[in-house]
């Protein structure tokens, strides 16, 4: 289980995220909804070790991982797909996936993980020798998620995975996330796309101006009037 307790991040004096506490357990999809600039990405980056946090703690299965560098966070079982996808554009699909299996925790199971990823994304199997740079946005997102899954994570973090994808591709990606969840992985995504993400999520948090302003089951949130007006474009 991934847990943040009162995590705060400051940019200089500006408070980007304050006292945010969340949990993500195995086999659940948790979504954090918030407008542009609410601090969602900052919060996710702080958990992944890419942005320093100034207060609070992050725990993975009870062990503290606050302030650990990114490569140790991955070893602790948390894989991240950043907003820019974090793929290696000048390398091939196969090389990207191999790099995903770089963590020590993932190396013994590399072959099995590769098979699992290629089952999730059959298109990647056809394009193993292709440079990622030459692929479409949707395909790149597959490489990014596939690369993250290659590190055999317990928790998968995604920063706005729907960004730049058509509703159709987005739906396809979210269905894949649900299949990943069914294998026992806990998924935490931050999103602006409330409708599609709440449809696959189990629980959700609402982030506004760096603070959590609500949390409930996904079903309740999608019926909540506040969420309706703020994120679902009115009634």
């Amino acid at each position: 289980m991934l847990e943040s307790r009162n995590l705060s991040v400051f940019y200089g004096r500006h408070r980007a995220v304050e006292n945010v506490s969340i949990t993500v357990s195995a086999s659940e999809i948790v979504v954090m909804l918030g407008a542009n600039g609410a601090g969602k990405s900052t919060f996710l980056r702080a958990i992944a070790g890419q942005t320093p946090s100034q207060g609070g703690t992050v725990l993975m299965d009870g062990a503290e991982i606050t302030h650990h560098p990114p490569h140790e966070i991955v070893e602790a079982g948390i894989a991240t797909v950043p907003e820019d996808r974090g793929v290696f554009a000048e390398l091939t699909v196969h090389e990207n996936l191999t790099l995903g299996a770089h963590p020590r925790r993932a190396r013994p199971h590399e072959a099995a993980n590769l098979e699992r990823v290629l089952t999730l994304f059959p298109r990647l199997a056809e394009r193993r020798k292709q440079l990622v740079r030459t692929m479409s946005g949707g395909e790149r997102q597959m490489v990014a998620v596939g690369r993250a899954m290659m590190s055999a994570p317990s928790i998968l973090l995604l920063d706005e995975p729907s960004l730049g994808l058509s509703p159709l591709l987005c739906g396809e990606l979210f269905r894949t996330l649900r299949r990943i969840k069914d294998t026992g992985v806990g998924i935490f995504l931050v999103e602006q796309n409330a409708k599609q993400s709440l449809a696959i999520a189990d629980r959700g948090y609402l982030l506004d101006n760096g603070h959590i302003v609500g949390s409930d089951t996904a079903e309740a949130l999608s019926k909540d009037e506040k969420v309706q007006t703020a994120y679902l474009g009115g009634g």
Partner: protein
Amino acid sequence: MDIIIIGLLLGGTYALMAMGLQLQYGVARIMNLANGEILVCGAFGAIWFFTASKMSPIYALIFVVPIAFVVNWAIYQVMMLPLVKRAKNQGQLEVDSILATFGLSFIFIGILLAVFGGEFLTYSYLATPFLIFGEPYALNRIAAFLGSVALCAGLYVWLHWTRAGLTLRAIAVNPAAAGLVSINVPRASALAFALGGAVTAAGGVLLSMFLTFDASLGVIFTLKALVIVIMGGVSDVRGAILAAFILGLTETAVATLVDPGLTLAAAYVLFIAILLVRPEGLFGRRST
């Protein structure tokens, strides 16, 4: 024919020194202006081993390369790491590292002057003619070329076929994402910097087989390596190798057909032309 063969032999030897700078700049993100001094140190090392004990420069590699690796690793830990940690962005690191390594180059020159004095140093090794297509070429040039090709090939295979090599290429492509696949970027950068220095020193050993060196010659090699790396693109070894051959051919052609004094000028005309027309390098890609 002469020009082409001598140019190719020279270019092949340049390729190795350019790969050294490319590892330091492309992976570790340090634009090392003391690169040429490292090369001169390698050359002086070979000269010293040869004059002291008649040791073949090929054997001298066995000593020079590990020493250069350790020294460059230490330079990274002591001098570069604080700059890397302090830098808020790539541009700042570039400015800081250029200034710091420019200073470092004078420290190296001072040490070399103090130890070896200011004279031109050389030694005679394999200075026998070897016939290619009926024309004689110095055997030491051919030996240096073959040594360089072997080391370049080894490095290429290591970078492209091993997990460790793949991690270095990953950092060159996307350092932020490298952390996300559990690559210890600071440690891998130190390794790349040290390896780059070792490769450059090896280039110096090989060049010393047919060139004369003095303590202040480093800057010329820094600039040549820079021309090659900029021409070939910073992240692709193949580009650098091809660019090294282009530079070797251009220098030889200008020296033979026009005037030997203009070789460096010709290299710079090439360099400026590429900066103006294709700043991302002949084979590099514009970042998106």
